[in-house]
C-alpha cells in the first residue's frame, strides 16, 4: 500500500451556529485536530466562528478565524500549501466548499489531495440523479421520484407520482426550503421555495412515505475497505419530520434482528460503493406495521425499505452516535484520513481493544430536539422536512421510560415535565397529535384521557405503538402515584422510570425536598453506570457515566480534590456554544490547577461532553436533583463534598446556584448572593446608588398601575422586561402608554410572579466589558463597542474590539465603574457588564450608565479571549481557587489594547423559522456568530460582513422602507447608496423622501392586495438583492407591513438590515472595498 499519511491537512470548520449546523462540528473538528496531532500531522484549521474550542490557539497547528469563502480558502492554501484537505468535519458548509474549491481548480493548482470522501462520492450522495443511479447499481430499492428544475416540472412529477409528495432541494443544509405537499397549491409554493433554496436550482419531488419508520445508521470505512457500524438510531417521529427535529432513540427499538441486519448490510454496501474513508450516515425508511399505516406488498417477505439520504461526512447524527455509544467517530475518521486502518487505531475507551468493532449498548439513549418556540411564540410550530430545532438534549438510562423522562428534564423549557399539558387541551374534543414541538406532551395527554394506542398511532401518522406503550407505562405510574400511598417500592419503581422528585411530589402531594428526604430515608439513591462501548464485556477506563436506579454503582470515589463544572445544556437562542466553550476551559483550568474536573451536561453536540475533556463526565439533566445526587455521590470520596462552579454554564448553571446554596452545598466563584444583587432589581438599584454609579432611571414593578406611574415619571421610550430570564426574552422598547399596557401583560406571563423591570430607554453607544476579579483586583481584558445603538440585544449586535468611538476618559470611567461594581458585589471570577455611553459636549464629563451586570461568563468570553490573548476562563478559575491575578501573571485594570480590530457579527437562522419576525430588538434572535479580524477596522468589518452573509453586492438594487423615526438617520446612507451606483426601490413614504433628495427611485407598494409589483414581489422575483427596513414600534401597522418584507428577505436569503446602524456599517464597508489580510490568529496577536 502506498504511504497515505499526509504531512499537513487543512480542516474546514462549519462556520456560525445556525439551525441545521450546531456545536456538533466543533466537537468533530476538535477531536480531529487532536487526532492529527497524535498522528504527527500538521493541522491547519479555518473557521469563522470564534465561539468554538477548535479555534483555540493550541488545538490546531495553525488557526485561521476567517470567512469561509473560496477566495479566502485559496489564500490560506497558497500560504500553507497543505498536502491534504479534510472536508468532512465541517458539515454541509465544509463539504460544499471542498466541491467549490475543486471546481475552481484550486485543489489541482496547489496539489491538494482531498481526504476522507472522494469528490465523486460527494456528488453521488448529493446529486439526486447520481444517487438513484448508485442505488440502482447496488440493487437497493429506489423511491419513486423526479428531479425538477422548474415549478412546472414539479407539478408534472407530482401528477405522475401522486400526492402527497415531498420536495427536497439539492445541496442545502437541514433540508432548507423543502417541505411536504398534499395539494397542488401547496406543491407550487413549496416547489418555488425549494428551488430558490437550492444553489443549483434543483429539487427532488418524491413519493411520500408518511407513517413509515425512519432509521439511521452511522457507518465507518477505512482505506483498506473495512466497514463497521457505530450505531443505529430510530426516530420516534416517523417519516415526514426532519431527523434533526425528531425524538430519536439509540439503538433502534422496534427492529427485529432481521430488520436490523438487513439495513445494516445495506448501509455498509453504500459506504463501500461510495469509497468513503471515514464516517457516513445513511437514513432509511422502513415499512411500518400494516395496522398502523398500510402498504402494498407481502407481509411475509423481508420488510420493504428505502434509502432516503446519505451524508458522506460527519454529521449531527454522528455526534449523537458518538455520545450515545462512546465511540469517537470524528477522531477515528481523522485517523483514517491520515492513512490508518480501523484495526490499527486503539479504542480510546477500553484502551485494550481496537477501533475495529461495533459498540454494544446496554442502555437506551433518547435525544429530544430543543426548539426556539419559547422565544418565537408566533413562529409556525409544525414540524416537517425543514429542521427548526437549534439544539438538542440527550439522556441515558436503562429503560426508555427513564431516559425519556430525563431527556425532558434536560430540555429546560420552563421547568416543563412530562406532566405538562397545554391549557387548551383541557376542553379539546380531541388532543391534536400532528407533528409539532409539543407532540410528546400531546400524546401523553391523549393517553391520560384513555385514547386507544392503535388509534393514537394512526392519528399521529405512524408513531409506533411500542413508543406509545412506553408512554402508557408512564401514565400508569402517574396514576399509581396519585392513588396509592407513597411507599418504598412505589417510589423506587417511579424513580426507575425516571420520575423526578418534583414529578413524584406533584403527583403524591409532597414537596420535592420531602421526596428527596424520603428517598434518603428509604435508601433510594441513584447509582452511576459507565458508557463503555462494549456493554461491560471489557474493562474500560472511560470516566463517562449516567445515573440509574439499580444495584451496582460504578462511579466510585476517587482520590484528590475536585470541582463540579455545571454545563449549559442544549444550544438555544440566548445560550449558545459560547457557554460550552467556557465550560470546557473551566474543566481544563481545574486540571491545570491539579484538581479533578467533574463535568455535568446534557448536550450531546458539545466538546464538554467529550469523554476526554474532563476527569469525570456525568451525562445528566442540569437540574437541582441531578446535580445534588452527583455531588452526594462524589462526596463519598476522601476529599469530601466537591464545590460547584456555576458561572460558565449560562443561565442554566446560574439557576442552580440558589438551590445549591439552600442545600448547604459549596459554590466557588461568585455565589448566590452576588447573583441575587445583580438580578434583584431593588437590591441592584440600592447597590449602584451606594456606589454612586448611574443607571437609567427605572423601577421594578409588579402591577400595571406601578408600571404606568413609573413610565410617566421617567418618560417614554421605556424598556420593559421580566427579571431572571435569559436572552432578553419578552423584552420590549415601549413608546407610549397603550403599548405599555400590552407589554406589561406579556412580560408578566413570562416573569411568572417575579417583578418586571421598567427602565428609561437611553439611545447611545452600547458598550460591553468582561472583567475578572480575584477579590482584590479586577482585570478588564477588553472593552467592546456595539455597532448598533442601545435597543438591540447585545447578542444580536455587532461588536468591535477595541472600541472605535470611545475616548480615553470614557474608557477610564468604564474601567473604574467596572472595578467598583465587581468588588462591591463580591464577584469572584468573571462578570459581564453592559453600559450605554451618551454623546457629550466638549468639556462635559463622560456620560456612562450601567445597563446590566451579570456575575458570570458571558457570550463574549470566547471572542474576547481570542482577540486579546487573555486566557479569561483560566484566570477566572484560578481566582476562584484562591490564586490572585498577580500570582497568575496578570495586572489590574485594562489589559493593553491589541493592535488589531476584531468584529463579532451575529448570524440568524430566520429562513428556517416560518412566521418569525426578523427585526432586531431587545429580544435576542441570532443563533450564532462569526468574527472578522484584521489589522484595520475596515478589513475586519468587511470580513465580519462576508462571514455573516451580510456583504452588499456592488451596484445592486436595494429596497428601502424606512420608519419615520429613523428617516433622518438614513439620509447620508441613501446618498452613499446612490453614489455607489445602487438602484433604489422604496415604499411610498421612503420613496417620497428619496425623490425629494433629487435621487432616482422606483416606488413599490406596501399593500399586498393593492397591485403589483409589491414589496414581496420585488424581493421574491429577485429584482432587489438587499433590503433595509427599519420597523416602528411593534404596535404600528408599519411593523405588520414590514413583517412581510422581512420574511420575504429571509426566505429569499438576501441581506435585510433592520437597524440603520448595521446598514451604515455595511455601506461603509462597501464604500471602501475590502482590502483584507488573511492570517492566523497567532499572527494577528503576535503583531504587537
Amino acid at each position, binding site marked *: 500500500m502506498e504511504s497515505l499519511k499526509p504531512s499537513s491537512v487543512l480542516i474546514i470548520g462549519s462556520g456560525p451556529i445556525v439551525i441545521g449546523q450546531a456545536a456538533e462540528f466543533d466537537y468533530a473538528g476538535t477531536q480531529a485536530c487532536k487526532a492529527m496531532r497524535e498522528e504527527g500531522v500538521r493541522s491547519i484549521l479555518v473557521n469563522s466562528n470564534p465561539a468554538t474550542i477548535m479555534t483555540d490557539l493550541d488545538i490546531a497547528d495553525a488557526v485561521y478565524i476567517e470567512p469561509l469563502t473560496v477566495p479566502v480558502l485559496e489564500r490560506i492554501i497558497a500560504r500553507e500549501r497543505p498536502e491534504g484537505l479534510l472536508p468532512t468535519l465541517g458539515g454541509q458548509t465544509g463539504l460544499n466548499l471542498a466541491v467549490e474549491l475543486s471546481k475552481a481548480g484550486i485543489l489541482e493548482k496547489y496539489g491538494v489531495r482531498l481526504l476522507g470522501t472522494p469528490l465523486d462520492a460527494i456528488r453521488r450522495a448529493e446529486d439526486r440523479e447520481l444517487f438513484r443511479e448508485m442505488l440502482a447499481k447496488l440493487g437497493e430499492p429506489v423511491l419513486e421520484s423526479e428531479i425538477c428544475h422548474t415549478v412546472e416540472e414539479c407539478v408534472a412529477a407530482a401528477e405522475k407520482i401522486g400526492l402527497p409528495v415531498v420536495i427536497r432541494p439539492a445541496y442545502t443544509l437541514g433540508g432548507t426550503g423543502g417541505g411536504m405537499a398534499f395539494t397542488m397549491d401547496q406543491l407550487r409554493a413549496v416547489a418555488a421555495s425549494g428551488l430558490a433554496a437550492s444553489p443549483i436550482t434543483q429539487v427532488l419531488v418524491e413519493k411520500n412515505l408518511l407513517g413509515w419508520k425512519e432509521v439511521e445508521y452511522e457507518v465507518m470505512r477505512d482505506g483498506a475497505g473495512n466497514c463497521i457500524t457505530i450505531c443505529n438510531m430510530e426516530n420516534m417521529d416517523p417519516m415526514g419530520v426532519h431527523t434533526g427535529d425528531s425524538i430519536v432513540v439509540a439503538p433502534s427499538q422496534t427492529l*427485529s434482528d432481521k430488520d436490523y441486519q438487513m439495513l445494516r448490510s445495506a448501509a455498509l454496501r453504500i459506504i463501500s460503493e461510495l469509497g468513503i474513508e471515514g464516517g457516513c450516515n445513511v437514513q432509511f425508511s422502513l415499512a411500518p406495521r400494516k395496522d398502523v399505516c398500510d402498504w402494498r406488498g407481502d407481509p411475509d417477505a423481508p420488510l420493504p425499505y428505502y434509502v432516503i439520504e446519505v451524508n458522506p461526512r460527519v454529521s449531527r447524527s454522528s455526534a449523537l452516535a458518538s455520545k450515545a455509544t462512546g465511540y469517537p467517530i470524528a477522531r477515528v475518521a481523522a485517523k483514517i484520513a491520515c492513512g490508518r486502518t480501523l484495526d490499527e487505531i486503539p479504542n480510546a475507551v477500553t484502551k485494550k481493544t481496537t477501533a475495529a468493532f461495533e459498540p454494544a449498548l446496554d442502555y437506551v439513549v433518547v435525544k429530544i430536539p430543543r426548539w426556539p418556540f419559547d422565544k418565537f411564540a408566533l413562529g409556525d410550530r409544525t414540524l416537517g422536512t425543514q429542521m427548526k430545532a437549534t439544539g438538542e438534549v440527550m439522556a441515558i438510562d436503562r429503560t426508555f421510560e427513564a431516559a425519556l423522562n430525563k431527556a425532558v428534564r434536560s430540555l429546560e423549557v420552563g421547568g416543563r415535565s412530562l406532566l405538562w399539558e397545554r391549557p387548551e387541551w383541557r376542553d379539546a374534543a380531541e388532543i391534536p397529535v400532528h407533528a409539532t414541538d409539543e407532540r410528546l406532551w400531546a400524546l401523553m395527554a391523549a393517553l391520560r384521557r384513555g385514547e386507544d394506542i392503535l388509534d393514537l398511532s394512526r392519528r399521529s401518522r405512524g408513531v409506533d405503538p411500542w413508543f406509545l406503550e412506553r408512554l402508557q407505562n408512564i401514565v400508569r405510574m402517574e396514576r399509581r402515584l396519585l392513588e396509592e400511598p407513597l411507599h418504598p417500592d412505589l417510589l423506587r419503581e417511579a424513580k426507575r422510570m425516571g420520575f423526578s422528585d418534583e414529578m413524584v411530589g406533584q403527583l403524591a402531594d409532597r414537596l420535592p425536598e420531602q421526596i428527596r428526604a424520603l428517598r434518603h430515608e428509604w435508601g433510594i439513591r441513584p447509582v452511576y453506570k459507565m458508557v463503555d462501548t462494549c456493554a461491560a*464485556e471489557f474493562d474500560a477506563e472511560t470516566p463517562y457515566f449516567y445515573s440509574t436506579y439499580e444495584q451496582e454503582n460504578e462511579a466510585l470515589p476517587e482520590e484528590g480534590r475536585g470541582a463540579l463544572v455545571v454545563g449549559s445544556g442544549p444550544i438555544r437562542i440566548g445560550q449558545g456554544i459560547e457557554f460550552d466553550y467556557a465550560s470546557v476551559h473551566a474543566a481544563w483550568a481545574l486540571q491545570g490547577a491539579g484538581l479533578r474536573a467533574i463535568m455535568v451536561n446534557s448536550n450531546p453536540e458539545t466538546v464538554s461532553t467529550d469523554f476526554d475533556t474532563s476527569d469525570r463526565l456525568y451525562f445528566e439533566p442540569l437540574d437541582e436533583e441531578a446535580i445534588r445526587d452527583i455531588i452526594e455521590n462524589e462526596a463519598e470520596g476522601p476529599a469530601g463534598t466537591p464545590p460547584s462552579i456555576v458561572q460558565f454554564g449560562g443561565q442554566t448553571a446560574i439557576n442552580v446556584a440558589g438551590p445549591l446554596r439552600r442545600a448547604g452545598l459549596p459554590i466557588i466563584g461568585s455565589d448566590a448572593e452576588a447573583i441575587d444583587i445583580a438580578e434583584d432589581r431593588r437590591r441592584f438599584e440600592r447597590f449602584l446608588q451606594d456606589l454612586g454609579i448611574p443607571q437609567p432611571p427605572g423601577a421594578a414593578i409588579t402591577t400595571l398601575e406601578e408600571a404606568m406611574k413609573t413610565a410617566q415619571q421617567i418618560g417614554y421610550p421605556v424598556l420593559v422586561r421580566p427579571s431572571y430570564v435569559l436572552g432578553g426574552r419578552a423584552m420590549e422598547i415601549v413608546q407610549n402608554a397603550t403599548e405599555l399596557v400590552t407589554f406589561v401583560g406579556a412580560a408578566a406571563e413570562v416573569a411568572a410572579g417575579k417583578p418586571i423591570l421598567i427602565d428609561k430607554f437611553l439611545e447611545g453607544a452600547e458598550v460591553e466589558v468582561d472583567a475578572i476579579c480575584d477579590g482584590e483586583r479586577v482585570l478588564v481584558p477588553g472593552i467592546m463597542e456595539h455597532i448598533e445603538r442601545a435597543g438591540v440585544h447585545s447578542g444580536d449586535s455587532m461588536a468591535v474590539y477595541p472600541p472605535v468611538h470611545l475616548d480615553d476618559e470614557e474608557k477610564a470611567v468604564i474601567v473604574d465603574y467596572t472595578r467598583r461594581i465587581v468588588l462591591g458585589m463580591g464577584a469572584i471570577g468573571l462578570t459581564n457588564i453592559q453600559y450605554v455611553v451618551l454623546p457629550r459636549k466638549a468639556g462635559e464629563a463622560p456620560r456612562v450608565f450601567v445597563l446590566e451586570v451579570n456575575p458570570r461568563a458571558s457570550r463574549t468570553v470566547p471572542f474576547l479571549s481570542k482577540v486579546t490573548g487573555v486566557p479569561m476562563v483560566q484566570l477566572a478559575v484560578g481566582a476562584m481557587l484562591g490564586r490572585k491575578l498577580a500570582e497568575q501573571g496578570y495586572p489590574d485594570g485594562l489589559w493593553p489594547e491589541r493592535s488589531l480590530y476584531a468584529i463579532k457579527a451575529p448570524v440568524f437562522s430566520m429562513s428556517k423559522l416560518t412566521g418569525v419576525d426578523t427585526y432586531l430588538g431587545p429580544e435576542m434572535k441570532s443563533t450564532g456568530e462569526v468574527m472578522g479580524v484584521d489589522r484595520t477596522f475596515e478589513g475586519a468589518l468587511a470580513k465580519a460582513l462576508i462571514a455573516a452573509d451580510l456583504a452588499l453586492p456592488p451596484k445592486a438594487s436595494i429596497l428601502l422602507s424606512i420608519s419615520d423615526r429613523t428617516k433622518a438617520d438614513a439620509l447620508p446612507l441613501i446618498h452613499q447608496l446612490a453614489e455607489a451606483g445602487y438602484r433604489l426601490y422604496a415604499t411610498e413614504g421612503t420613496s417620497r423622501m428619496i425623490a425629494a433628495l433629487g435621487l432616482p427611485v422606483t416606488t413599490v407598494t406596501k399593500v399586498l392586495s393593492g397591485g403589483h409589483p409589491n414589496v414581496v414581489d420585488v424581493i421574491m422575483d429577485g429584482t432587489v438583492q438587499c433590503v433595509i427596513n427599519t420597523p416602528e414600534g411593534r404596535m404600528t401597522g408599519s411593523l405588520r407591513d414590514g413583517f412581510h418584507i422581512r420574511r420575504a428577505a429571509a426566505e429569499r436569503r438576501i441581506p435585510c438590515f433592520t437597524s440603520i446602524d448595521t446598514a451604515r456599517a455595511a455601506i461603509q464597508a462597501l464604500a471602501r472595498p475590502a482590502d483584507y489580510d488573511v492570517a492566523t490568529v497567532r499572527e494577528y496577536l503576535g503583531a504587537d
Partner: protein
Amino acid sequence: MSDAWLVLADGTAYRGRAAGAPGRADGEVVFNTSMTGYQEMLTDPSYAGQLLVLTYPLIGNYGIDERVEESARIQPTGLIVRQATDQPSHLRSHQTLREYLEARGVVAIDGVDTRAVTRRIRRHGVMLGTITTDETPEQALARVRDLPGYDDINWVDSVTTPRVYDWSVPLGEGRYRVALLDGGVKRNIMRLLERRGCSVRVFPAGTPAADILALHPDGVCLSPGPGDPRLLDSMVREVRQLIGRVPVFGICLGHQVAARALGAGTFKLPFGHRGGNHPVKDLVSGHVTITAQNHGYAVDPDGLDASAFVSHINLNDGTVEGIASRTDPLMTIQYHSEACPGPLDNEYIFDRFIEMMAAVKGGVR
C-alpha cells in the same frame, strides 16, 4: 408479578420479577451483548445448560415470530434480563416474550441489574447459578453449590439430532451433497447451504466417518454446538478420518473439533465470546469483518499439524478464529458466519465452502 431471584455460585443474589414460567432453572451463567436477536439466541442449541444474560436491557420489544427460530426449542435453561416487554410491536409478532417462555415452561427473571451481573462474570469468570421463583436466596445457593460442573457434561448429546434427516430436499437433489454433523446446529446454516444449491443430510454427532463417506458427499459441515470440546474424543477421531477425504467446513464447535483432529488443543475462555460485534481479521487477506460469536472455549494452536495454519484471529484478544489447511480442502471458523442473530458480513464463508467443493468435484486441488 411475583418475585424471583438470580443466585450465583459465589453467593451473589439479585432480586427481580418472574418473567416466564415459575420454578427453578440452573445453569452456567453467561452473557451476550447483542442488541437484537433474542429469539434467535433463545433457540441456539449452543446455549444448552446455560442461563443467558442479555446485556441489552429491553428485551421482547418486537415480540415473537416462530419463523425466525434456529431450532425446535428454547435452549438455555433460563433467561435473565433488565426489562422484559409485555407490549411488543412488530408486523410479524404473534406472541409476547412472556407468553412464549411460559408456553414452553422456561424460567426467566427481569428487573435485574444485568450490567452488575455481567461485570461480575467478566471479573470472576462464568459460574453456575440459578433462577428461582419459589426459594429464598439462601436455599437456592445451597442447591447451586451442589450442581454438577458445566464442563463435566457432554451437552452435545442433549442437542444433537437423534436420527438422520434431510433438510428441505432429499440428498442428491442439490448441486452439492453436504453431510452435516449436528453438534447443535442452527437452521440458518442449512438455509444458507440450501440457497447455494446444496442438499443437506443431517447426522447425529456420534455418526462414524465411514457412514458419512459411504454417501460420497461433496462436503462435510461440522456444526456449532454447546459444551467443552475436550469431552468429544470420539467425534474428534471420526473427523480426523474425514479430513483429506472430503472438503470439511467447521463452524464454532465444529472448528474446535477439527482443530483437535489436527493436533491443536482447546481451553476455556474466562467469560466466553458472546455477541454480534467481534472483529475478526482474515490473516490471508488482511480484511476485518464484524462477526457473531457464541463460544465459551477456544482453540490453542499449539500442536497444530504443520499442514494447517491459523487463518483468522479475534482482534479483541488475539484468540484463534479460523484454521485452514495448506494441503487439504479444509476451513474452519470459530465465529458464526450464519449470523442469526448478528451481522451478515460473513456469509461469503459459505461461498468459499461451495468453491472448495466445486474445486474438488472438478478435480482441481
